[in-house]
């Protein structure tokens, strides 16, 4: 049986590609970031290990045009195609699958991802998908499901693997119940880097201070906090699972020694904390991996890491720490269920920057309640942190409700959503009613990105570079150039949003098959 795990190139009419960004949100950029879909990479590896023929078909990372990708996929005649959903590309996937089903009538189409898992019937109604996975544990489910399909001609009726909605032989939808929330992650294989063609993802990624970089197999799926209302890793259906420290260390050792990786980022919603974080850092040092010129990075939350642990991580050659600073007013943090207090932000960042870590802030603006004063507080606070060198880099996004997160549901129930068209949920413009004009939030984003060109910030960055233990001037050129390109991308998008509600058209256009 031939299984294609597919990511079609999605290009809008501005010529921008859909890139999967923080928390696997989709944004469109001229110069995309190519993020390795980690869980799907594990699924591909697992299926290959089970003896199935697996096609790793990431048209984006493989730099294919949509037509090339489509024609190649049809020519390969896979028995199963697996896609990953998120709100802004649902219409695209529905159209694409409708076209593909005509050209590949015998192929089974499976949809995964956080949008369809919460509205499986919608996807089955809108497009000729055969199965929708309700589980975030795509690797575990596919490793059970594909053998069942291969061995049972009547799988539509007989398959009882939990967490599926199946289109049965009569076209009706059959649910197999709730999915298994906790899985023993150590049973899922470490990603086969050759299978997923890891080098395609090794350079264009803003989270890498050095290249080639790669994503580790996530140690936590999805997030051990899992309460932030805007985040897709939050819901009554989700808890978290954790990979043992030693297994992750084994992977790091292999990535460094066998693949020559110079940066490893773990994109778990939140990485280890406390005892596990210290054990991991000690393991890196014990194995001598901190002396191999490879940096390590992760996502964390404020108030998760103490000073001693941060210093130990720095000693183990950790650098890039991505940390959400969603707003600088307590009311917003409370509404978002962030679970940290503003008063501790500076101290946490100071511990990190003093230890030589590289805190990267992720900021959001445009909450449906955000006032001018709250917005100004956020802008001023972030500028202050950046100018004082407490954070090294940052990114700002427009808070966009998607994938039926609690924030999304709240926007629906409070009737603040300005559109129901999923294409509009691509983070390029605000889609909620707000107390002040949208242009003020866009201006705030531009002002924040303007920090990158401010003399005070540039001076701080120069001072920071001089403190590098290894005088890594490569960083200045590679990371700096990539950072500036990202800033230009963001500002371009906001300039377009300012110009009016121009609707991006995703290819293929509605109703057309491109074959």
């Amino acid at each position: 049986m031939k299984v294609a795990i597919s990511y079609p190139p999605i290009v809008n009419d501005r010529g921008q590609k859909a890139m999967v960004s923080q928390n696997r949100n989709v944004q469109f950029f001229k110069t995309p970031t190519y993020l390795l879909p980690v869980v799907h990479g594990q699924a591909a590896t697992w299926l290959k290990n089970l003896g199935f023929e697996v096609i790793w078909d990431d048209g984006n990372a493989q730099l294919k045009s949509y037509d090339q990708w489509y024609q190649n996929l049809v020519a390969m005649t896979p028995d199963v195609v697996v896609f990953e959903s998120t709100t802004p590309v649902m219409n695209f996937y529905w159209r694409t699958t409708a076209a593909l089903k005509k050209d590949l009538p015998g192929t089974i189409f499976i949809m995964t991802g956080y949008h369809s898992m919460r509205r499986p019937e919608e996807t089955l109604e809108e497009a000729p998908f055969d199965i929708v996975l309700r589980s975030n544990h795509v690797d575990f489910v596919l490793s059970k499901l594909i053998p069942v399909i291969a061995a049972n001609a009547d799988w539509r009726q007989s398959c009882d693997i939990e967490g599926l909605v199946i289109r049965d032989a009569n076209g009706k939808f059959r649910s197999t119940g709730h999915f298994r929330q906790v899985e023993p992650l150590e049973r899922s294989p470490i990603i086969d880097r050759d299978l997923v063609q890891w080098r395609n993802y090794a350079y264009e990624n803003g989270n890498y201070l050095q290249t080639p970089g790669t994503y580790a197999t996530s140690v936590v799926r999805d997030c051990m906090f899992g309460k932030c209302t805007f985040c897709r890793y939050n819901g009554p259906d989700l808890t978290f699972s954790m990979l043992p420290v030693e297994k992750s260390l084994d992977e790091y050792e292999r990535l460094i020694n066998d693949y020559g990786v110079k940066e490893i980022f773990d994109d778990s919603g939140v990485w280890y904390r406390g005892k596990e974080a210290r054990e991991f850092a000690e393991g890196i040092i014990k194995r001598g991996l901190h002396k191999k010129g490879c940096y390590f990075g992760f996502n964390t939350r404020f108030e998760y890491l103490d000073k001693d642990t941060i210093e130990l991580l720095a000693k183990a050659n950790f650098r890039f720490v991505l940390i959400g600073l969603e707003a600088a007013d307590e009311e917003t943090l409370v509404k978002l269920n962030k679970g940290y207090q503003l008063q501790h932000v500076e101290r946490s960042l100071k511990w990190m920057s003093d230890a030589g870590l590289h805190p990267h802030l992720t900021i959001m603006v445009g909450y449906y309640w955000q006032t001018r004063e709250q917005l100004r507080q956020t802008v001023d606070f972030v500028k202050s942190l950046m100018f004082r060198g407490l954070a090294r880099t940052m990114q700002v996004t427009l808070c966009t409700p998607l994938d039926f997160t609690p924030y999304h549901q709240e926007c629906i129930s409070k009737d603040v959503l300005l559109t129901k068209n999923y294409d509009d949920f691509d983070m390029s413009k605000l889609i909620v009613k707000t107390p002040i004009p949208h242009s003020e939030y866009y201006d705030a984003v531009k002002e924040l990105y303007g920090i990158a060109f401010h003399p005070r910030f540039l001076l701080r960055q120069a001072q920071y570079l001089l403190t590098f233990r290894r005088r890594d001037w490569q960083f200045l050129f590679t990371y700096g150039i990539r950072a500036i390109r990202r800033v230009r991308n963001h500002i371009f998008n906001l300039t377009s949003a300012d110009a009016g509600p121009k609707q991006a058209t995703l290819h293929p256009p509605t109703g057309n098959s491109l074959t």
Partner: protein
Amino acid sequence: MRSGLHKVIGVDLLTDLTYMLRLERNDMSFVPGQCFNLGIPDTAVNREYSSYSGIYDDELQFLIRQVEGGQVSPKFRSLRAGDMVEVDGAYGMFVIDQDLVKTRKFYFIATGTGIAPFHCFAKSFRDLDYQLIHGTRYANECYHRQDYEQGRYINCATTENSGDFHGRVTDYLKINPPPIDAMFYLCGNRNMINDAYDLLRSRGISSSQIITEVFF
């Protein structure tokens, strides 16, 4: 959801490593099963703990196991009456559907301090028909078993023969199969959750009847 400083009423030592942190409630509201973030003021570090106390209790209680080599749990243990704790919350969706309370039997399966949300359920829902199966190493880890109605609490002690049952919670469930139409809540270490989940599914219990939360 709110945050604030809460005064420590006391720290009750229950075993060598486990204790109950008791805080003034300050009108803090929550749904049974939810957790709070607790932090020592000015340390800039917090941790999540499920409420051990019920919604009608005057104080907030948290059942905490001290992590060996941990940075946070030993500090909570050393608190004294009158000290302050930062409390954020409440969060989480490991909660009971109120509509099911009067119509369904509930099986609560826990290991160690994973019993905390079930203690909260038992104290909050007076009409709840439940069976609590608690896995511990030793029988002295049956924290506050007097708080449960007669016959509802079963201790499964793995390293000594003085509990209600000698063995793992999964061993108990194999010998005492639960009703197939009950609701099952699993909370504790992930190995127990995985094993218990497999066992329940093998008995024909639907995945929609099994709700899990990992403690670590």
